[in-house]
């Protein structure tokens, strides 16, 4: 089984987001970077599937040169090799992103049985890159998956919905997007980190098509005008808390 995992480098934000002066990006001067949480789980899922069924796991990202850090992170937890589509760091819209990924998959030549994505990226949240890749490659696609079981040429995929789980049986090769919670990703070990440095990484620089979903600027949502009512300090606040709970009708 060969699996490709697509990830995106995103900043690790704190309690407050600040923007760059040109309003084109988040101010990341003090922030670390990671891959989107859903994608971290996608990588973990790929590693687990390969551990079970054998094969090769590959991680792909479209991102700035610094995104190599995230590719190494993924290889540190067990992904075998990486494909880096090096961008200038600017915003790629979903169509351009999907096209670059499709081209990279074709160029790589590996017959991937499974393309894993996160359900949506933590930052842009466009909810469509995986679907576009699947349509372009004419492969079935399921999204928002919380459990995958491989059974021969078919994947049993479970999706959380109101009132339970919906199950899909998807023939491979397939595209699956997963949600955090499908697994608990492992931490990289020190030997894993060291191996990751030596794992193969191929880089290329795709050309960005004009954005058809064109970001104009980022805007911070208006702050909450709430003024929290302080019910008290420490345990002495308990009676006042219970009064409130009674008012709401939950006690």
């Amino acid at each position: 089984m060969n699996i490709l995992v697509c990830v995106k480098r995103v900043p690790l934000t704190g309690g407050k987001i600040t923007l760059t002066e040109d309003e084109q990006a988040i101010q990341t001067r003090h922030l670390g970077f990671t891959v989107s949480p859903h994608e971290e789980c996608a990588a973990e899922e790929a590693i687990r599937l390969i551990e079970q069924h054998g094969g090769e796991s590959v991680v792909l990202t479209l991102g700035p040169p610094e995104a190599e850090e995230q590719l190494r992170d993924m290889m540190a937890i067990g992904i075998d090799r990486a494909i880096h589509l090096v961008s200038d760091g600017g915003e790629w819209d979903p169509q351009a992103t999907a096209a670059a990924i499709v081209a990279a998959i074709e160029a790589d030549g590996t017959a991937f049985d499974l393309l894993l994505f996160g359900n949506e990226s933590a930052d842009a949240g466009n909810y469509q890159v995986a679907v576009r890749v699947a349509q372009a490659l004419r492969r079935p696609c399921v999204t928002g998956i919380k459990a995958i079981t491989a059974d021969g040429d078919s994947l049993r995929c479970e999706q959380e919905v109101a009132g339970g789980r919906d199950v899909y049986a998807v023939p491979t090769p397939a595209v699956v997007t997963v949600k955090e919670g499908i697994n608990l990703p492992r931490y990289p070990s020190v030997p894993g980190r060291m191996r990751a440095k030596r794992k193969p990484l191929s880089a290329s620089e795709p050309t960005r098509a004009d954005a058809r979903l064109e970001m104009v600027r980022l805007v911070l949502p208006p702050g909450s005008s709430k003024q929290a009512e302080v019910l008290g300090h420490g345990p002495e606040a308990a009676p006042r808390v219970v009064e409130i709970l009674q008012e709401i009708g939950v006690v």
Partner: protein
Amino acid sequence: MATTSEPRQLPARQSIVIIGAGIVGNSVAYHLTRLGESAITLLDKGPLPNPGGSTGHASNFIFPVDHSKEMTALTKESMRQYKELDVYLECGGIEVARTEARMQELDRRMVSAKTWGIEPTSLLTPAEIREMVPFINEELLLGGFYTPGAGVVDSLRAATIMRERAVQAGMTVAANTEVLGLDVEHGRVTRVRTDRGDIEADRVVIACGCWSPRIARMAGARIPLSPAVHQMIDIGPVARFADARTLVDYPIVRDMDTNMYERQDGGGLEIGSYAHRPIMMDADEIPSIEESALSPTELPFTQQDFEVQMEQALELMPEIVGDESVGVRYAINGLLSVTHDGLPLLGETPEVAGLWSAAAIWIKEGPGAGKTVAELMVHGEAEIDVYESNIARAYPHQKTKTHIQARVGEGFNKMYGIVHPAEQWETDRRVKVSPYYERQQERQAVFYEAAGWERPQWYESNAPLLEEFGDRINRREAEWESRWWSPIINAEHLALRERAGYTDLTAFAIFDVTGPGALDAVQRVAMRQMDVPVGRVVYTPVLLPAGGFKADLTIMRMDQDVFRVVTGGAWGMSDLKWFRDHLPADGSAQIHDQTNAWTTLGMWGPRARDILSSVTSDDVSHEGFGFARWKEIEVGPLSVIASRISYVGDLGWELYVPIEQGARLWDIVAEAGLPHGAVPVGAGVYGTTGRLEKSYRAYGAELEGEYDVVEAGMAWGKVKEPDFIGKEAHVRQREQAPAATMCTLTVDDHTSASGVKRYMLGGEPILTAEGEPITDAKGRRSFVTSAGAGPSIGKHILMTYLPPEHAVVGAQLQVQYMGELYPVTVATNDSTPVFDPDNSRVRS
């Protein structure tokens, strides 16, 4: 931000406002209340108990042994307090050696442990290390230095308890309160402006860790430190630690040769490093609490800086670090505060009265430094004399960003380094060069840094003197002692003693006290009588209130109302502040810093008078120009202030000219000296060999706050009538038998077990003939305060304080050096020098 979480109302007026609620600010607060201070508010812009500064992410371990007396004292005091607060977990610590050089350094650690009384400590074999730390790869190691008393503290808990105690004593705490400004009127801090209102205050303490420079600047003061990154990761879960009894069951390991440490942290292993490239920040660039993913001082980890360290940790602890199931769970670039010389910044800022700094302090010094700053604020002096950490020590150039960053960068990797006591800085040199600099370069001077000045330590051009003096010059056989040293120093010494030598004293700090109140001003500060005729030079101690040494320096009475203070460069700025702080309140005296206006060339030796008289028509005879006098004389076209004193104990003068005329003075002296065989001599002679042969004490070595004038053997003459700082204590001390007396010792035999001759460098413990440490009635250990060659007497000289039973001329004692004992003899037990005991030379 929209909350009403804290009372918005701050006190309108307080005696003291402390900014910063980490380990330091809380400690200062607690000790201030303990000392009886009231009307105190403690502010922090962050939440409590962890406001997001360095205390919150510190690795929290303490290794008490350090080569610095001051730092060891602060650490010992801090450990005492942590134990009293019941937050100290003693787990022991091992500094491991991978190299022979490190093994020698561990010998030095043993020496420092004994010198400062940190006991027990021991050296371990690799097998013994393995027994204590079963997951270590002992094959990499040659040995280890074990400190059973090392431990881990809960610094946040300690800070909390101290804060609670201070609150019980009436202190106000305002968390989530950001300081927006500090108001200063007439050079004195008056008000703290915050986002919750203003507080008028008499005194303000900045205990803001790496934010301190930013806060100080609001008042126009400078706290010269740089935030620097220390990398730390936590890996786990470690199977072996699954059943850990405590947070730390195994000794902490410091892998000194890789600049790293590894310590158990519950079920995980914490790995920290000082090995990576120095990563510095500006205090203004530290992110806000809200913007930070973790906290403002826990910055994103930069993996690329940790690659080599990972491999080194892996090879040292393969069982744990190499375990595939052990993951990197936490990794940060933690911010620390680092200074240009690696020491804390304690005391009142020289720029703004009432504005205090308690900064650049790490966990191991926190409570001790807090107590010390509180004592300084209340009493003007502290139980631990922190003169080396005095914030006033820095010269203007040492407070610049360029200098701080250069030195912090260079010092960073010395954190676990093997640092020779004479080791010189490499970065940001040649900031201050004397007018003689080019001439000194021509003479192949080897420059050391003195108070930022480039100052020759010796001149390679004097190498031919080695041949001249032949056997009288000993060669050092061991690499350690010959590092940062040259036998040429001893040759220059002999040339001076036999003919003459001239030396660059530009690094002196010079300031004039002037005005109708000038006499009162200097009388108040100086111990000796300053009401002397114009033309006199007085060498005087300057005392702390309790009678310990604050400084020793010379004062020239230039005119009725003009006194010129000349002091060593190292403490020049601290001394300047001391004088300034004690000027009469009525403004009748002023102080003017002349340090950069004058240059000084010293010339001494039996031929000094012949040389000087050959270039001046003024009377320089003994009758016409007595000892301890100054005169203005003509030397060629130069009007020179000549001061007849000596720190090397020979006939001669300090020659002062305006700095732009220095080069000409040098040329005249060098040319006139040539026929007399005079040579330029470096500070190796002036500061060490010449001084030690004369048993002259030096501030910062023999003289410091912990010792008084009687103990130093300098209580000659009567106590002057006018009052002076420390007088009451001084009078009392004169009436009592000293607990220890400054003695000069000579080494009887230098031969080590391997047959190599070894020479002490200072800081070694003096032991009894039986090998026991010597402690005086005040609990102070006897150790070598200064060590150096005495080429004229052919012996290696050590100075030390000894209690009365040992301070006996001829007493046989021992000194411990690099793991071995050497016999020494007490040569003198008062100010009598070992060379020219009658002082006939200086008065000839």
